């Protein structure tokens, strides 16, 4: 399964890079979103994949059951998801303002305006 997820990471990242290389600022936002998905998955798979055994302590026990998933990558990814959302929201509004101010979402013609 790790192999499949690795391929998915590759597809998400590749699609993200392709979108970053477009001239459209809107596609840039999509690219950022896909790349953060890719990175989250990458960190997640690094911790090793465990099915159906989350790091939770059952009501009658003191520690999680043996063989539980590693909590550390999960904690890292959880943080990353939230930060990624902050970034996405900020980029969205920034792009909106840029397009409104300059009248285009084409990065090339923005450069022409500037000169």
């Amino acid at each position, binding site marked *: 399964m790790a192999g499949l997820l690795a391929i998915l990471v590759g597809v998400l990242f590749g699609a993200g890079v392709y979108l970053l290389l477009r001239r459209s600022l809107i596609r840039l936002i999509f690219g950022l979103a896909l790349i953060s998905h890719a990175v989250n998955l990458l960190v997640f798979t690094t911790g090793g994949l465990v099915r159906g055994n989350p790091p939770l302590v059952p009501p009658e026990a003191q520690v999680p059951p043996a063989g539980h998933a590693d909590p550390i990558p999960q904690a890292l990814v959880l943080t990353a998801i939230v930060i990624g959302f902050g970034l996405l929201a900020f980029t969205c509004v920034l792009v909106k303002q840029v397009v409104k101010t300059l009248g285009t979402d084409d*990065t090339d013609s923005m450069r022409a305006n500037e000169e």
Partner: protein
Amino acid sequence: MLWTILLLFGLAAAAPLVAKFAKGASGWLLAAGPAAILFAYLAQLPILPGESRSEVWEWVPGLGVELRFVLDGLSATFTLLITGIGALVLVYAGGYMAGKAKLGQLLSYLLLFLGSMLGLVLSDNTIALFVFWELTSISSYLLIGLDHERESVRSAALKALLVTGGGGLLLLGGFVLLGIAAGDLGLKGADAFSISALADLDLSAHGLYPAIMVLVAIGAFTKSAQAPFHFWLPQAMAAPTPVSALLHSATMVKAGIFLLARLHPALGGTDLWTALLVPVGAVTMLGAAITALGQRDKKRILAYSTVSVLGILVTLLGAGTVVAIEAAVVLLVAHAFYKAALFMVAGNVDHGAGTRDVTLLSGLRKAMPFTFAAGAVAALSMAGAPPMFGFVGKELFYGKLVTAEARSTLLILVAVATNVALVAAALLVALRPFVGSSAGVAKNAHEVSAPMLVGPLILAAAGLFVGLFPDVFDATLGSAMATAIAGQRVDMHLALWHGLNPTALGVMGLSAATLVLGAMVYHRTRRLLAPLAEALSRLRAIGPETWYEKGLAGLVTGSDRVTRGIQTGYLRHYVLAVVVAAVVLAAPPLLRSLPGAAPLFPEAPRPHEALLVAVAAASAVAAMVLRSRTAAIAALGATGAVIAMLFLLFSAPDLSITQIMVETLSVILLVLVLSRLPRLVTRSSRSRRIADLAVATLAGGTMALLAIAATTVSLDPEAARFFAAASYTEAQGRNVVNVVLVDFRALDTMGEIFVVAAAGFGIHALLRLAPETGGAA
């Protein structure tokens, strides 16, 4: 000894304030500092051969850097020259710049320079020496560039900085290699960087010796203006006269000589040492002496003659025999006296008569009698005429050449030609302006003020005194200095008269011939000047200075081109550069690690998992290619939702919940924002899209490789075990991930909250800003 350096730096900081309040008297006031230091070191005399007093302060013990100061014959002589001439130059500067706004600045830089120079000559630790070495480069840059409003001044200052600074870098390389070599030979810690400890080692047998020697020699050559690095020094004439006096006499340019002298016991005595120093010194002394005669500006004549004398000193140190070192010691001191005096005389003439052009000046002897007297006495020393100290030095120089085991006729000829040119140059700067008709510029000339006479008169008198009583010098300092340079005990017995023996007669013959020939050349200078100047300007076009200028211009245009090439202003070019570089660097090692990785599919993937991965991949590709904004957003949302399901399948319920919430919010936000933005259109050409797709595929492939390689890394289970065990027992939480976030790593989470809050403030600000910049909200 540290206090003397700190005192000078302290005075440098105070100088602008002193100049503001004391005005004309500030030169005298500030000169008290170096003068006090001069007397403090004079009180240490006599220093006997082989004697050295040291003092150590810790600096960076871990790196072997310490402030170890050593006072022996060599450093004591330099210390006295620096502080003595320094004090006189400060007095002179106070008079020369009286009433000018930049007086405080000049005095401050001069003191900074004196302090750096003092640190340089006293340092025994190579790294500390290098720091002071660079400080002298920087302060001389400030001094030369004092009149920075003029373009030519700025470029001259920059030239000095680049040439000496470049040499300084090589010198640092040499010192580091020297430390490594010393470490190999058994010196530990700071000892490996201590020059006095190096002398006992057999460094020349070490494999690094040639590299060390070349690097140190180039460092010294740049500082001491040896060919082909000499060109910055005459350019430094842009500096005001007190600066020229200081730069050219005891200090800046002698730093290279000092370094060679200091390192002679450690590095000298080899064929490589001689082969590097003697030819460079010989070419420099003759070339510069002839060039000096082709100049009209008194300061430039003096500058080139300085380069010439430095060449003589390098040659003598390169020869490295006891006689040669004695000659170098005497010439160095004699030159310091007469050259500082002559520069001040040149400044006085400029001040009193309004020009430094020797072809215009004449008949100043009545208008400027004291300046004339000081100049004449100093010039006698420069010309090597008895009974001056310069005469003693030149006699030793000739004596060394005549008695050398491998007597070189070529070297004798070069030496005589050099001295002939120096005699003529001395007459040109010290006689020509004062004799002859007083009809021209002399009519309105006037003698200068007392502060500007004190320096040249004292220095000229000092050269005469030491010339008349040379045994005073060799008993108190000279023998000790020669001993420190030679690395073996030297007892100097200087005298004006060496009795009647074949060697002495031969030397006297050479001296007499030099003086006569020099006088003859001087009489013909009027006719020689024009053709010589023309030939020199032709030489200049192919010389090192032209190369320097072309190199500098090329560097500027080259970096301009490179910058424009890299900094295109197109976002995708930056992304491309980052991605391609990452792929090129990361893919090969990842590919190599592939065979060692765990089998990709140890078990057949479960159908529902495979389906989810396929859906996620398909929606990502759809988000990439769809042209409808809403469809693309939907595809993006689908990707996120499927990833949330994968999190759930693989035991991460918290991630799943968070992902679903964030994804929902993101989709709402994107729909809200993007519906007001233009539609998606295809802008790039087909070939561009294919090329980008290829890059993206490579990037994705590299990431997939990284993900596979990551599975083979076994993380340290210790942290996970701790969190799992402590989650309930210590933090009373049953959800380990949550406990990690809000308890064990609470500070990280707080940082995260700040980031999200900052993004929120940013969004708010952007939305508020809109009406002012974008027109209608």
